[in-house]
């Protein structure tokens, strides 16, 4: 026998870089994950890959010029971002948009919410391994894209809202298009629920995974479906109604479990509520002008304003500071994905690598909404 001394077998933790190029990161994100076998010990999100200085650029653009840039961050909620920005400027100027404009803006924001949640649904299915859901969800989104194209001329980047108004009214035939879609989507959502939500494997992969307590969520500043999935029915559309949300009835779905399944169910139900809102808006849609009287040179008086709306991902805030000039002195955005992402390390610690993917997907982060 040889006299070799054998070191005892040891295991060591390894560091895996998920991203910046990785199939599961929604956009350019980077997570440094320390794993012990398959168990996650630590997760550090690295952000900044999509930083594009939009807030600084805003200081060089006149108020009305920046609208087109708001489409660029959180690209799944372009019209919602425009709504937030335009409302902020209008409050700064003290302008009241005409009622028809307010209704159309609300309608567009809700259509955008459905579209964004459909993208979430598809991507989440893909994250969990159900690849067919991805294509089906994108197929259901296609009529929505057609509608946006008919109304605004663009499919992703719209530049549709104006300060005190809209670029154009709804086109002829839009009502039929919308009603066809509203008749079509509920059946499809039911099909999706049959295919994915009620699937035993899906439930096994999401129930009790990535748990965030309500207290943790509030301390991280988490908002949107992620917060409502923790049992906190916090929705700006209800609590501080803006646009036309005070004239429609809807429920705020909320589930107390705080896991991936709860967040998923919140989004599925929100699509139904959005359809309910859209039906009421179409019924009550007033006739009339779409443009308020706005000074030719937009020069708000010195002052500041913070406007917030409920984006599909949570509370989207726009802070504007005016020094009385034609350009904002300072602009800041509160992107919901940034705050939601901060809670990720708490949610995934101790879980398996596969749970990390499920949890990240359930936060529905948008990379340029984190950095911009």
């Amino acid at each position, binding site marked *: 026998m040889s006299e070799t001394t054998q070191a005892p077998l040891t295991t060591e933790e390894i560091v895996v870089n998920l991203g910046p190029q990785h*199939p599961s990161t929604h956009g350019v994100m980077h997570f440094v994950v320390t794993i012990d076998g398959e168990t996650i010990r630590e997760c550090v999100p690295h952000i900044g890959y999509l930083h594009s200085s939009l807030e600084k650029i805003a200081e060089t653009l006149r108020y009305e010029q920046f609208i087109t840039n708001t489409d660029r961050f959180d690209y799944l909620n372009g019209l919602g971002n425009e709504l937030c920005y335009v409302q902020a400027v209008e409050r700064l100027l003290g302008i009241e948009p005409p009622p028809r404009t307010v209704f159309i803006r609300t309608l567009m924001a809700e259509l955008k919410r459905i579209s964004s949640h459909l993208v979430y649904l598809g991507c989440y299915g893909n994250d969990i*391994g159900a690849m067919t859901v991805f294509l*089906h969800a994108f197929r259901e989104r296609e009529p929505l894209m057609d509608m946006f194209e008919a109304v605004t001329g663009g499919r992703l980047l719209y530049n549709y809202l104006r300060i005190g108004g809209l670029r154009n009214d709804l086109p002829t035939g839009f009502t039929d298009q919308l009603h066809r879609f509203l008749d079509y989507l509920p059946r499809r959502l039911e099909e999706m629920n049959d295919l994915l939500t009620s699937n035993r*494997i899906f439930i096994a*992969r999401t129930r009790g995974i990535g748990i965030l307590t309500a207290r943790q969520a509030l301390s991280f500043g988490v908002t949107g479906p992620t917060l409502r999935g923790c049992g906190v029915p916090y929705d700006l559309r209800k609590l501080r109604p803006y646009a036309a949300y005070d004239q429609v009835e809807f429920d705020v779905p909320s589930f107390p479990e705080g896991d991936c399944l709860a967040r998923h169910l919140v989004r599925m139900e929100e699509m139904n509520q959005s359809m309910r809102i859209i039906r009421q808006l179409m019924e009550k849609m007033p006739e009339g002008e779409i443009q308020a009287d706005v000074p030719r040179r937009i020069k708000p008086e010195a002052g500041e304003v913070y406007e917030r709306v409920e984006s599909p991902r949570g509370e989207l805030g726009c802070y504007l500071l005016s020094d009385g000039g034609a350009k904002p002195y300072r602009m800041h955005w509160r992107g919901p994905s940034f705050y939601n992402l901060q809670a990720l390390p708490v949610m995934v610690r101790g879980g398996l690598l*596969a749970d990390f*993917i499920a949890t990240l997907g359930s936060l529905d982060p948008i990379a340029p909404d984190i950095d911009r």
Partner: protein
Amino acid sequence: MASTLVKTILDVIHNWAEGLAQQWGIPHLFVSIAAWIAAFVFVIVLVLLMVLLAVYLERKVSGAIQSRLGPMRVGPIGLFQTPMDALKILTKEDIVPRDADKILHTAGPVIFFVTAVIGYVVIPWDRAAIAAQVVDLNIGVLFVIAVSSIGVLGIMAGGWGSNNKYALLGAMRAVAQMVSYEVALLLAIVCVVMQTGSLSLAGITADQGGSLLQWNLLRWWMWPALLLYIIASIGESKRIPFDIPEAESELVAGYHTEYSGMKFGFFFLGEYAHLFIIAVTGAILFLGGWHSPLPATMADPIPGFIWLMGKALAVILIMMWIRWTLPRLRVDQLMNFAWKGLVPLGFVAIAVTGLAIGLGLAGGGG
């Protein structure tokens, strides 16, 4: 007809070689070796054709399920897409990571592909049992499972030799999974062996001859084994819902993350070759092999070769249907399912089969 297709091809080659040998005075031994090589080439060609067909089907079936067309551009209804892709992959650069273990990195795909292909030599393709089978081993079914489980070594070599964390994780998952699901697969096969009394694939096929009612599919005491075989074979071929070794959203491409060119091609082809042999074996074990479902009294214009292929394709279609419908299990759920779900089911299946044999319903080992 096709029943003698294999025989004809082999005979032609054999006669031609023997003629040459006599002319040139070459010893008979070389002729035998040449015949064996010809047989091997035949198997490879057959496997590659099957693989191309399976890949094409996969694309078309997934397209149909996902409401899109699948490949349509190259050739009529995209039939040449897969051969073109295979050609393309041959021209790709073969990249070996700088710090990879070069020997293991090369050995991985070779082991994986070869072990996936070797199993085909014992498949009885048609009724002329000797000629339509390259070799009739008396432990044929064991041989198929044994060689395909050696493929795990190829995966481990590739995953370890790549010096990549995703590849390593994927390889570890693959080994754990394949070893676990093989146990369940073997338990299902034990039931069939108890029923038919033979380990030879030709023998198992012969036991199911005569009429449709003789198929193991229609013997109710075989149903637990059938269910077990379907589930375990999906797990064994690493497809959704059991595709954790290459879970795309988690591990990029799992154990073949660091492969390109034909080395990747070998993994890819090997996977489908493996899939096809599992399907063919399933068709032999439960669907009567090359036997026609028509009553024996009726003239059967379709050769047994085609029947077996059709049955294997039916099995593959079921596996594809499942793949494109279900989400993916997590690694611990997968192992729990294998050891706490499938293995007990295997014992139940064996008990049921044994009971049926005891009651005189079943063949009881011939």
